[in-house]
């Protein structure tokens, strides 16, 4: 933690509402501590704008620990910025050189309408989850947790998929705005575990069909989603979900 400061030029997408026209605005910001996070840099910009009597930039954020999935926008063409496996709240300004020019845009996808500036509406993800992203088990029904052994490797692999934070970077990175990585990660998490088996195929079909209905695109296997995912979720989950989808549709007749 050795503090120094840098200057950055920001080109930020400003859009006052979903149906309003948007445009880029340019801001110059000096004295940015290299120890501050990217969002703290935006805080600094907003305090400056407010002091000047200008409207601050709206961006979504909450935990600032890379786990809630609230934050996310595109920096110079990269969802969540240049670092792999890093949400924008965990990106720090020491990553940038003084004089850097940074272009900030919201996720762009038909299913994610812009709310204001860098904020988008991701409620479509909840609709995919409601379509089947769960084990149907009412409280009171559960057997003792140790009654079904689950191998360490299987539990760990299930966790890899369950780590998805639902930020939407995969959709933003995809030229088709496909939600396949998000949807397949949940399908894969539950399909890895014995408790997820009873609804495995109905879940897969319902969730993937719902994603299509909501206007998310199809997967054309460019794997950009995996590169953009802050939790580094593998595209292998997409292949597995597709296999289960075909099996569900063709073999099981769902």
């Amino acid at each position, binding site marked *: *933690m050795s*503090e120094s400061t840098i200057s950055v030029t920001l080109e930020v997408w400003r859009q*006052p509402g979903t149906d309003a026209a948007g445009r880029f605005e340019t801001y110059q910001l000096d004295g940015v*501590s290299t*120890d*501050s*996070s990217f969002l*703290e*840099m935006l*805080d600094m910009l907003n*305090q400056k704008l*407010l002091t000047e009597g200008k*409207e*601050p930039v*709206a961006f*979504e954020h*909450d*935990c*600032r*620990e*890379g*786990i*809630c*999935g*609230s934050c996310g926008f595109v920096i110079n063409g990269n969802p969540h910025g240049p670092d792999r496996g*890093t949400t924008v709240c*965990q990106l*720090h300004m*020491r990553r940038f050189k003084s004089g850097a020019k940074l272009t900030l845009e919201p996720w762009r996808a038909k299913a994610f309408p812009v709310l*204001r500036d860098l*904020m988008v*509406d991701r*409620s479509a993800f*909840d609709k995919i*989850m*409601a*379509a*089947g*992203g*769960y*084990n149907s*088990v*009412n*409280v009171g029904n*559960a*057997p003792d*947790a*140790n009654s*079904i*052994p*689950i*191998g*360490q490797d299987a*539990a*760990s692999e299930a*966790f890899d998929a*369950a780590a998805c934070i639902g930020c939407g970077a995969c959709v933003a990175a995809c030229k088709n705005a496909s939600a396949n990585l998000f949807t397949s990660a949940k399908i894969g*998490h539950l399909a890895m*575990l014995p*408790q997820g088996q009873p609804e495995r195929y109905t879940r897969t079909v319902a969730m993937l069909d719902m994603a299509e209905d909501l206007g998310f695109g199809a997967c054309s296997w460019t794997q950009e989603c995996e590169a953009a995912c802050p939790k580094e979720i593998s595209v292998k989950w997409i292949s597995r979900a597709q296999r289960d989808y075909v099996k569900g549709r063709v073999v099981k007749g769902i």
Partner: protein
Amino acid sequence: MIETSTTPLDGKCPTGPIETRWARHKEHLQLVGPTNRRKYNVIVVGTGLAGASAAATLGEQGYRVTAITYHDSPRRAHSVAAQGGINAAKNYQNDGDSVHRLFYDTVKGGDYRARESNVHRLAEVSANIIDQATAQGVPFAREYGGTLENRTFGGVLVSRTFYARGQTGQQLLYGAYQSLMRQVDKKSVNLLTMKDVLDIIVVDGHARGVVVRDLKTGKLDAITADAVLLCTGGYSNAFYLSTNAMKCNVTATWRAHKRGAFFANPCYTQIHPTCIPEHGESQSKLTLMSESLRNDGRVWVPRKGKDTRAPGAIPAAERYYYLEERYPTFGNMVPRDVASRNAKYVCDDGLGVGQTGRAVFLDFKDAIERLGKEEIARRYGNLFDMYEKIAGENPYQTPMKIYPAPHYTMGGLWVDYDLMSNLPGLFVLGEANFSDHGANRLGASALMQGLADGYFVIPYTLAPYLAKYGNKGGVAADHAEVRGALEGVAQKTEKLMSIKGERTVESFHKELGNVMLDKCGMSRTEAGLNEAIAKIRALRSEFWENVRILPDKDATLNVELEKAHRVADFLEFSELMCVDARERNESCGGHFREEYQTDDGEAKRDDENYAYAAAWEFNGVGADPTLHKEPLTFEFVKLTQRSYK
């Protein structure tokens, strides 16, 4: 002069043998039949562990539930960030754990300021939570043989903590969230996202609804129901810098307090010992490093101040492993309040490290030598990565620097054994209530309490209220109280928008936080608290004359306006925290009054005069509140001076 009510507050706890209190209580609770449940509307505010689990479970039972969150999705609630684990008295490790021991550890850990009946119930249902979460698909850590793995946490001598890497809260929340979305799909839960609850509607002395502001459009709406459940978390953001998420706030509970609900023990706040230290002025929040790290990390500072050598170059004899030396039995695993206070002491003595001198080392060198880097990475990999991203140093090579930060609040709205506040029809769950952790919460107990309340307590304790007082169909939209509450919020919003002053909301919040951390943080004095109250009052007046909100209209998505409502409430609430801290002339758990300490600097309780929960009644902003005391009796755990030596 604070006025004290002479009638003791009754928690309505069952009596008799503690082991059977909950079972006997449940047997006699009135039920609502399956076909009648759909006639009752229940509002659940907040979708963290407590809220999501309550909404899902009540939906499963057949009630008509409205779940409200200010996030764009229930999955973002701050429970998601809990790292280390969840306690349960399963005794899978065969190391002497039991319901009684979990009960005992929690009462003792809370420094004998929690209700025995509640804590015992919590310990009893803890095991069911693990079963439920596993059935939902929560990928807990497993042994090679496929059984569940445990680790240990501060303040206990058994391994009873279940975990999912360093993301236990995330996985438990997703389990509850998924159950919630299943009920949304079944239409038994109506999910409202991006809505901020700004008032509680009270009709004929019963909580019957809430006023919400749509965060996308600014539109105000009243939602009415037969009962309201607040599951809105804690108030650590009164300190501005805390480990809480940026949006965490006291608004729903504070506005319920202003409507008559008592606020209990607001001065019981937890300062977590292992957080990444502040980096400078632009700091917006602090990041926790899970307490589980203390399982393998050793805490130390150099024996002489301003030692500029690299930590690795300082020989063992010149290192002060202060927790291991002072507390040989518990060592690095002392409870959080003890660990935090000791970090403060060594830094106050000039032994702190880092740029600011407000940090201590958490060193994994010995553990890496003993277990290998791979095993350490398996246990804590994501935490180490996170540390490196934030601090820019590799903890596999150089010790982490840590310092305490506000993290959790044990205080909250007062509730009885059934989790109902003194305002009938208003139930409070999870961190938002005051009930289970006394003056200090043990690690991995917050997740346990949130889910216990939501999955296993409220589904039983809500029914008797509904059966007796529910009015099946709610309150008319044009009822005077509904219109009055809506108008009140509209006026407050208009007032905030019309000030058009010079200072940002953030600058007020930051200034308030500095006062609170300095005077009402890890240690407190009467004089300091009086000073804080004067400063808070001055700051509050300035806020209402000089705050600036942009965009300058409220009928739109307006982040500054959202924050202004929250900070306005923190500016009122913080005064109550200080009043409560000043009134409690003893030290206990996270509440440390410098005037009351033992010769070796430990918290000195006064059981004779302060073995009560302090529940405060609102009398107006700036007016002295009235104190109601709920006496705490200890029949099953002997009151002793807590010792971790």
